């Protein structure tokens, strides 16, 4: 089992993709995104907040996400992120890239000498 630090390192490269994927499921705020990633990955990934928010702001700056302030179910105002058209394209591209990489890696791992 990988240590926490190792996982965080691994996360860095894929964080953008994970965020885009989560947001693609429906507009959500920062807290919800971090909770979902944690839950869906069955606690494998614990996103440090120090990375999540700068990443969100970076994605927004690039035009992949757009933000909107609205009320949550509990009636509090929160910043909701949702995917833009460019964001969708980026997500597709990243998923494709990921699949190719994963395939290539698993091919190598499966090779028997």
């Amino acid at each position, binding site marked *: 089992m990988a240590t926490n630090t190792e996982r965080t390192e691994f996360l860095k490269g894929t964080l953008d993709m994970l965020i885009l994927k989560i947001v693609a499921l429906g507009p959500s*705020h*920062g*807290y919800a995104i*971090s909770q979902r990633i944690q839950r869906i990955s069955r606690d494998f990934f614990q996103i*440090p*907040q*120090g990375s999540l*928010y*700068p990443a969100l*702001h*970076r994605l927004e*700056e690039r035009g992949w996400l757009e933000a909107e*302030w609205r009320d949550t179910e509990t009636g*509090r*105002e*929160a*910043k909701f992120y949702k995917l833009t058209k460019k964001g969708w394209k980026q997500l597709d591209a990243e998923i494709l890239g990921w699949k190719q990489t994963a395939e290539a890696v698993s091919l190598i791992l499966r090779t028997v000498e």
Partner: protein
Amino acid sequence: MRWFRRLFRKEAVEKQLDAELCFHIEQQISDYIAEGMNPGEARRRAQAEFGGVERVKEECRDVRWETHADNFLRDVRYAVRTLWRSRAFAAAAMVTLALGIGASTAIFSAIDNVLLDPFPYKDSRHIVTIAIRDTDQNEQDRRNQFSFPELQTFVRQNRVFDSIVANAEDDILYTTGDSTFRFGGDYVTPNTFEFFGVAPLLGRSLEPTDYKPGAPPVFVMRYVSWINQFGGDPSTIGKSYMLNGTPRTMVGVMPLRFAWGGADLWMPRNPVEPDTVSSDHFQRDWYWGAVGRLKPGVSIPQAEADLGVIAQQLATVHPEEYPKHFTVKVETLADAVVGSRFRDTLFILFAAVALLLLIGCGNVANLLLARSATREKEFAVRTALGAGRWRLVRQLLAESLVLAIGGSLLGALIAWGGIHALAAQIPAFTIASESVIRMNGLVLVFALLVGMSTTLIFGLAPALQVGRRDLSDALRDCVKGPGGRSVRTGVHHAVIVCEVAFSLTILIAAGMFMRSFVALTQVKLGLRPDHVLAARIPLSPDRYKTASQVAGFFQPLLARLKSMPGVAYATETSAIPPYGGIRSAVQVSGKVHTENWPSIFQLCSEDYFSVLRIQLMQGRTFTESEVNDARKLAVINQTFQSQYLGTGNPIGARIHLDELNKFPDAVTDPWFEVIGVVADAKNHGLQDPVVPEAWLPYTVTGSAGRGILVRTVNDPAMMVNAVRREIWRTDHNVAMAFAETLENFLNIFSYGQPRFGLLLVSIFAVIGLILVATGVYSVIAYATARRTHEIGIRMALGAASGDVQKLVVRTGLRLVAAGIAVGLLASLGLSRIIAKELWGVSPYDPLTLAAVPALLLFVALLACWIPARRAAGVDPLVALRHE
């Protein structure tokens, strides 16, 4: 634009960021509470998990562009404040940069417009002029006009040209109502407009059908002349005008820069038809100027060789039309128009200005390095306090950028003003009519790039040093001990020596030009050009053929002019003095000589010598009745007398002017009796010695060009319209052309070019002086700043402030002296080139050679004195506490 608005809604953005993060923590807390944690514990845990809120915020801000813009603006504001604190430095750097950029752009633009690409014509680099050059005479002696059969021979037999077109100049008298105006007209051969490939601005240009026999007469106008004469009225196109007595239709106007042959209008002419216009006019056979377009790959020497063979054959058939020894001279349009002398001047400028830009940049670099050296400690301290290197670089970048942009803006302004000044001052007839002097954008961009990159590169030097140097080292020895001298100091000093040398060379040239110009303005003319109005009067060759026809116009005109209020004297003339007359070989009765005796003569009336105030030395001048009776009498100048008549009494001598025989309206047996001798007056330009000259009554022939000279009581320029009215009252089909005061003629033809040269060199000289002043100042100020400690010790040990000043000044003057020595050597080396441009002063003029170094020394002293005073004011306690 949301992102743009964000820049101005910083607070709102901050609040949102705050709210977003708070929301996250609070959600986490409420989740923990829901899991059963007590509120205090939940809050503690949530906050611990989140980490440093401020750090997260900082990272969020960092990804947003407006943060960077904001930082940059802050840097710039700080830079402006910093620079304002050292105003002298900032001003020196910006002015130096601006002068380098401005002057070089202005001069480069002018050179490009005048020399490199003056013509708007298609493929103009391959258009060449053709001339026959007499190799026994000087370079300028050439014939560039050809009879049509001669031209046809060249066209048919050459193998080097794609095509040849020709133009023939003529005075075109345009009559409208009771007025007549003169245009410079050019007859042009078929395909001329296709040859030059310039589309008309309005209407059409000349087409093949215009050249067919019996085609309706048409013409095309030059833009400037169209504006002047017709006020730019488009409805003039398609209308018909009386030109030389024939109605002609204006079919088009060419764009501004099309000015082929310098003509006002162009008319089609197919020289195959019998030449009716030239049939009755003197020398009209030598009529056509020709230009050809070289075939691809043909060089100028090849063309000269090819045409040379044809010309040699022609010379054997028509020996009278060719000099004994000659070559065919083929020149590109630009070379032919600008001429080699003016081109040399511009190329010297070119070199000087490139050097100027270089030295300007070197100066800026020097200033920046000097400043950076004095700031080493500041940067070391800031680095020690935790400023990142990138932070320092950004701040220096901002400072350099402020300097570079300030200097560049000022430089662009100087370039713009300079080009306008140049265009206004450039002497007439030295550049092609086609060239329009205006800013060359590329050149400006180049100069700006050079200037800005210098500033940025050298501005960043201290930041690079901070990276390289050991911090504690810099902090410790920020004040150099005595004798601290680095390689960099050597570079500073070399730049100063070069600057002084360059500046001295230019200043000496300027001094020489100044002396030369003064000498020119002090030339004794022998005539009084003030209060004289001069004009050419082109008479229509159809109606004014014989002597009596010409006299029939001038006799009443002169009578009218003389009776005008404000007119003292009026005379007919055949040339505008002091620029020559009609050239003729001369014979003197009773003297035998084999060699050619050259002279010039004027056709004039009785008031000629009174109008010009030429002094009578012996005998008398003409009376009115002698002129009206066309008596064969002559007045000669002293040079004529001394060269051809010897020591005997000149009155009564008989002289023969050969040329009069050859006039269309020939004077048979042109022997003239000398009745008087007048004092020498300049008659071959201002710079050449007086040549033998004779004056004859204008009534002896109907040929030759004519004009008038009028001496007025008040400003002659005010009389132009009144004189023109009298001309039209005498014959409304006669025009007054080139009406100008005699003083203006002198300004245009004699003083214009030297004054222009003087102006240019003076500008350089002033810029050079400023560069020297800022250069010396920056280096000495830098050296002094680095020696504050040493000076402090000296003063603590009892040196008086006077001693300290001497110490500083001595350092500066050593450099200046070295520069002056180098500059004097360079000046001596250049003196031969400069000598060509000088007149009436030796290139080793001792006054200039002494005065200029003295001036330079004075300026350098001043530049040293400011830092020297500052050094003398050093408080030893403060200086030593630095340690």
